């Protein structure tokens, strides 16, 4: 049935694929609170894009602005070259899957799915055909006569997805799609949902506070805070090369150091928390005397009982805490300066050591110059 799946209507248009959805200088205030602050964003056609941020960062407001459920104070929103800023929600080629799914409780699964097509005045036979295809796509065909409250959370989610896909929107919005599901089925659902959306080929923007969810499902993601976008990139770009402290701390965990560039000739930063200087592969545009933030991921640090041979990028400390996490062990190492460092050591690396590090052991930490990322802000 997949070949009958609702498909994005291809429309020939002059604008480039990279600017399929354009958000231009959009501002939205609630009273004095700035929910969306002069925000600009471009999204490619058929891309799965994630807006990632903690609650209250403005990501949901941005989604509601795109859906037409809120009106921006200023700025423009374009979809496929069409300015939709002034269009009411019921005229936008944009459909949204709500966080609570918002299934109509008094209608059966198929009536829920048919709702949007009936409002469009689509012929009865076509409604039946498209609803059946959409329900089959999400494997809910045999539940067509059920009422929403007779379905499990995962099934409700799939009905909500079918309902928003059946209208063949140019842009699909997903508001925290996994938040109503049990943690256990969440990961499996992430892949399922992703596969359905890729098979349909729809431009999709998802809002989430869960970095794992964003990284699993999205082609690109934007890290948001206080109504602004701090960094846009593919999941590995944002993880490997965070540009700001917020992004580095929000996605994964990290050790942040404040460093001062010692001289202009060599990329060596002095750090008051560390005995040895930090050698950085790419010092960006740092100048002598500048203070910069440096990010070092916990799993990029090697832990050993013997001193490191290198003259920089090392530290010595004592194991203060450790936790067995399954595939890796998490160590908290206290440095002589009082600084606590987080180190993830893989299970195989721990096995390879002649004795497992324990509380109070003195350990040596070392890392490569290419693991240190200089943050721009």
């Amino acid at each position: 049935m997949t070949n009958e799946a609702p498909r994005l209507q291809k429309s020939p248009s002059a604008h480039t694929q990279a600017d399929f959805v354009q958000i231009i200088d959009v501002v939205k205030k609630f009273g004095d609170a700035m929910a969306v602050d002069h925000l600009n964003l471009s999204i490619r056609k058929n891309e799965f894009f994630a807006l990632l941020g903690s609650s209250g960062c403005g990501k949901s407001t941005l989604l509601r602005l795109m859906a037409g459920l809120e009106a921006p104070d200023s700025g423009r929103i374009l979809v496929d070259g069409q300015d939709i800023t002034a269009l009411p929600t019921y005229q936008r080629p944009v459909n949204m899957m709500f966080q609570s799914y918002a299934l109509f409780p008094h209608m059966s699964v198929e009536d829920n799915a048919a709702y949007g097509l009936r409002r469009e005045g689509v012929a009865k036979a076509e409604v039946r055909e498209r609803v059946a295809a959409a329900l089959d796509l999400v494997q809910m065909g045999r539940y067509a006569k059920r009422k929403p409250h007779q379905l499990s959370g995962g099934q409700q989610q799939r009905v909500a997805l079918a309902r928003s896909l059946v209208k063949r929107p140019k842009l699909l919005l997903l508001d925290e799609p996994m938040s109503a599901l049990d943690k256990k089925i969440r990961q499996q659902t992430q892949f399922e949902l992703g596969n359905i959306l890729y098979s349909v080929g729809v431009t999709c923007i998802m809002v989430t506070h869960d970095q794992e969810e964003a990284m699993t499902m999205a082609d690109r993601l934007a890290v948001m805070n206080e109504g602004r976008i701090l960094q846009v990139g593919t999941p590995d770009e944002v993880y490997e090369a965070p540009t700001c402290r917020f992004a580095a701390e929000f996605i994964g965990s990290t050790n942040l150091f404040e460093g001062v560039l010692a001289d202009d000739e060599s990329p060596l930063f002095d750090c008051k928390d560390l005995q040895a200087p930090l050698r950085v592969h790419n010092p960006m545009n740092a100048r002598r005397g500048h203070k910069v933030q440096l990010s070092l991921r916990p799993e990029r640090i090697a832990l050993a009982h013997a001193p490191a041979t290198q003259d920089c990028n090392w530290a010595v400390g004592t194991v203060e805490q450790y936790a067995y996490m399954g595939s890796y062990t998490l160590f908290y190492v206290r440095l002589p300066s009082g600084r606590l460092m987080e180190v993830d050591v893989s299970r195989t690396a721990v096995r390879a050591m002649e004795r497992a590090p324990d509380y109070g052991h003195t350990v040596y930490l070392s890392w490569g110059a290419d693991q240190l990322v200089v943050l721009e802000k």
Partner: protein
Amino acid sequence: MSAATALRRPWRARLSRWLPSGRTMVIAAPFVFLLVFFMVPFAAVLKISFSDVKMAVPPYTAIAELHDGVLRIVLNFEHYGDVLANPLYIGAYLDSLKVAALTTLLCLLIGYPACYLIARADPRRRNLLMMAVMLPFWTSYLIRVYAWIGLLKNQGLINSFLLWAHIIDEPLKLYHNYTGLMIGMVYNYLPYLMLPLYAQLVKMDLTLLEAAGNLGARPWQAFVTITLPLSRRAIISSSLLVFIPAVGEYVIPEILGGSDSVMVARVMWDDFFNAGDWPAASAATGCMVLLLLLPMAWFQRLQRRELEAR
């Protein structure tokens, strides 16, 4: 466990075997109350309806008598026949049904939009607005109905204002007629309709309307396809809450109504207190209860069907 509690347990267990559980008692309390203070008097009224008129105190015959050690029960059904054959009663029943139906309809037309808007208002203002709806209950019902005379009579506030503003040349007849009756009925029963309706509308999930809009429904379409069906049960139950007592309303037609509508409560009053015909009035009561059981049975069936459909 100490010896004392070990001894106490079986004693309590033995007692609790004979006593209903606390839960049962809490649920039973209102039913016992209704049984004693509603069903027993109602049975007495029914009993009177099967007796005959007698010039005595009480003014009716006993239906059960001991004659030479033989118990004789005489059930007299002729009053029911009289009531159903009496054009005065039939007219009064029809008038009552008409007034009650129109009252319910007008209350719905006024109350539903009001409830809808209050439910969508700023949460801080909602309670204030509902308080305003409840405000009339702070004064006696009788005083409020009398107060309407001051508003509606020929030299009353409304007519005086309209005459002063030269909107009318002679006073409108608003009192002691059907108009006055309807104004009083709608005024008095409106809060009873609004409370349950508001309770339903305020708890409605507004994201459902957002979802409907996002799927292409204009606001009025979203109202018709989402809000209205989801409030259907509240509409029916609040309508019955108005309709049933409105059928038997006595005070408002007596004070504000005129001779153009004779409601059934009035006829019963006349039978009881003027004609002294208790059996006939009781039979009329019995007929009215049967009449009101119909819409209630219909509502019960509707609810059951909706539960089964789930």
